[in-house]
């Protein structure tokens, strides 16, 4: 008795890709049925199909995965919409590129990020470029630089492109303005190969950009920031590593005109002065998420109180941010995510005030010397459904504070707790949370779903013993 084809298809569909390939050897009928089942493969990560026997990086020349790629794309190529190489510096050769371009006729997303290309992709891009919606060449390097320098000539054919990642691109980008006007996302952080004039022209030709990543700032002149300031649809801007002082030639005041901006990330920007910061806080009325890290010339953070929609705030590496600023932020009662790193003038009092006044669900306080257990006690008694708490390297945090989290009203909502780099933390803290979590889970057993995410506690460089992992494993993942 034989199983009929309909049932076989169902059987095969729950087998893995490689298992299906192997079973092609059973007989000709099976081979035909098996090959019809690859239609449900829509996304392919080539790295998932490579055997790493040497435990080394994959880029070694000895590893040829041409047969693997041909085997994969000859089966599911026509159905695949998205293909990538797992960003692990695989060396991608010409036959691999050619086979992808030959078989993957409906590809809309191509991720060549973090690979070493030993290939000229121009011809492939002529074929598949016009259909690409999403394209990544993040940090991509070429064995033959000349091949890399040819890529930008294909930009003009990519009519459907919406997202492109050119972070740290090291090839010629003179034709960047050729990218289609419908482009919404670009990451061009740290890219070389373009002049200020080219970049300015690109920005002017792309008014539909909603997301712009320029950290490190690739290049620019006096007008670049003015153009960015006038972008009508920009929702997210990540800008950073601008070390020039002359305010006249590099004026960040222009950014305060982007009224559509919701997320702003500024890092290591010397031109960001206190007055400039004040203007941004007062005029960017739609801002819900703000990150300001290592901006030494911001001497006063009190303008943050002006950001009345602010839900997420991340401040780092400044001695100017202090408790008074937290008081003015807390007055808006909107903040749900708060992250600070090395802000030594933020103390327990400021945090407690924030916790008592805002709907905090994520609290990250790293390397802040003046924060003590009382902050965690305040959080634990706040009745807030907190999902993330991190207190890395805060010297006054001890078992007492960490164990207090066991009293959280919504303990099962807490998914991440980072206690790394705190010498005073040991098993006692974890066990207290474990015991309370066990009770909470038992209480909620009727409403809990099977795929509920486990709590993870990070205990790198703490006194937590390795044996504890086995004790709490059923409810908590310990990461050492």
């Amino acid at each position: 008795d034989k199983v009929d084809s309909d049932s076989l298809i169902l059987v095969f569909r729950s087998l893995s890709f490689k298992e299906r390939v192997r079973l092609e050897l059973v007989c000709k009928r099976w081979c035909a049925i098996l090959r019809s089942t690859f239609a449900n493969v829509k996304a392919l990560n080539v790295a998932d199909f490579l055997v790493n026997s040497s435990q080394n990086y994959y880029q070694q020349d000895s590893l040829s995965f041409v047969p693997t790629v041909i085997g994969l794309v000859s089966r599911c190529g026509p159905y695949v919409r998205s293909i990538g190489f797992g960003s692990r510096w695989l060396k991608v050769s010409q036959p691999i590129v050619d086979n992808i371009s030959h078989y993957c006729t409906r590809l809309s997303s191509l991720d060549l990020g973090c690979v070493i290309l030993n290939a000229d992709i121009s011809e492939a891009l002529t074929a598949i470029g016009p259909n690409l919606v999403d394209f990544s060449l993040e940090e991509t390097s070429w064995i033959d630089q000349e091949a890399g320098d040819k890529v930008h000539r294909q930009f003009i054919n990519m009519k459907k492109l919406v997202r492109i990642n050119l972070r740290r691109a090291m090839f010629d980008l003179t034709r960047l303005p050729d990218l289609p006007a419908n482009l919404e996302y670009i990451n061009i952080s740290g890219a070389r190969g373009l002049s200020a004039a080219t970049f300015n022209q690109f920005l002017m030709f792309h008014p539909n950009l909603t997301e712009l990543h320029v950290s490190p700032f690739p290049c620019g002149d006096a007008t670049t920031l003015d153009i960015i300031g006038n972008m009508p649809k920009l929702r997210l801007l990540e800008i950073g590593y601008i070390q020039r002082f002359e305010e006249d030639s590099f004026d960040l005041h222009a950014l305060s005109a982007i009224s559509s901006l919701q997320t702003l990330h500024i890092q290591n920007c010397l031109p960001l002065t206190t007055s400039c910061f004040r203007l941004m806080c007062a005029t960017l009325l739609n801002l819900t998420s703000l990150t300001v890290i290592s901006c030494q010339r911001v001497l006063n953070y009190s303008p943050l109180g002006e950001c009345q929609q602010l839900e997420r705030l991340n401040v780092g590496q400044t001695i100017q941010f202090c408790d008074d600023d937290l008081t003015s932020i807390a007055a808006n009662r909107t903040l749900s995510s708060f992250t600070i790193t090395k802000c030594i003038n933020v103390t327990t009092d400021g945090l407690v005030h924030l916790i008592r006044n805002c709907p905090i669900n994520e609290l990250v306080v790293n390397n802040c010397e003046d924060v003590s257990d009382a902050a965690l006690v305040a959080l634990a008694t706040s009745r807030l459904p907190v999902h993330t708490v991190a207190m890395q390297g805060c010297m006054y945090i001890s078992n007492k504070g960490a164990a207090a989290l066991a009293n959280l009203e919504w303990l099962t909502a807490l998914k991440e707790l980072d206690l790394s780099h705190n010498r005073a933390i040991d098993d006692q803290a974890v066990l207290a949370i474990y015991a309370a979590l066990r009770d909470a889970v038992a209480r909620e057993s009727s409403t809990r779903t099977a795929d509920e995410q486990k709590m993870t506690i990070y205990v790198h460089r703490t006194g937590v013993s390795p044996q504890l992992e086995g004790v709490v494993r059923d409810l908590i993942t310990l990461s050492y």
Partner: protein
Amino acid sequence: MIQLCSNDDPPVSFTVPRKAVELSKTIKTMLEDLEGFDMEQTPIPLPNVDAPTLELIVKWVEQHQDDPPPVEKPRVEDDDSDDSDADDDQEPEVVIPEWDKKFLPTDDEQKNQLFKLLNAANYLEIKPLLDIGCKYVADKISGQTVEWVRDYLNMENDYTPEEEAKLKEEIAWAEGL
């Protein structure tokens, strides 16, 4: 009550509550088409199902007659114009319930009965039964050698030695995974 008849000579008939029998889409559609006839008095012949298999089917539908109906997700036709990824038809993971685990004829001597059951479930369009049966077979053959799978599923190798060698070489990349 509805009467179902096996394909044996003479046919063996089973009397099943209508609610249970309607778990089979094939029979449900037939009953709807014959609305107005007195189906209580008319045995339904099932030309593709023998008595031992029909007995299993009846046992299963009676056990599951009160199950909530499975959520039917409309199947999106895969046409070239559609570029959205919304039609991501990844099969959801099938879990075999405890009762069904005991119910499925899983001894190796009974494997042909299992295959007949799958074919009958397919013919009668009893999707949940077909799903768990196929899941069982998939788990069973996963990780086994090609020879073992061939033997288990009563398949014959119809490749010539040359064809087989060529295919083996072509798929060598999948072996070590």
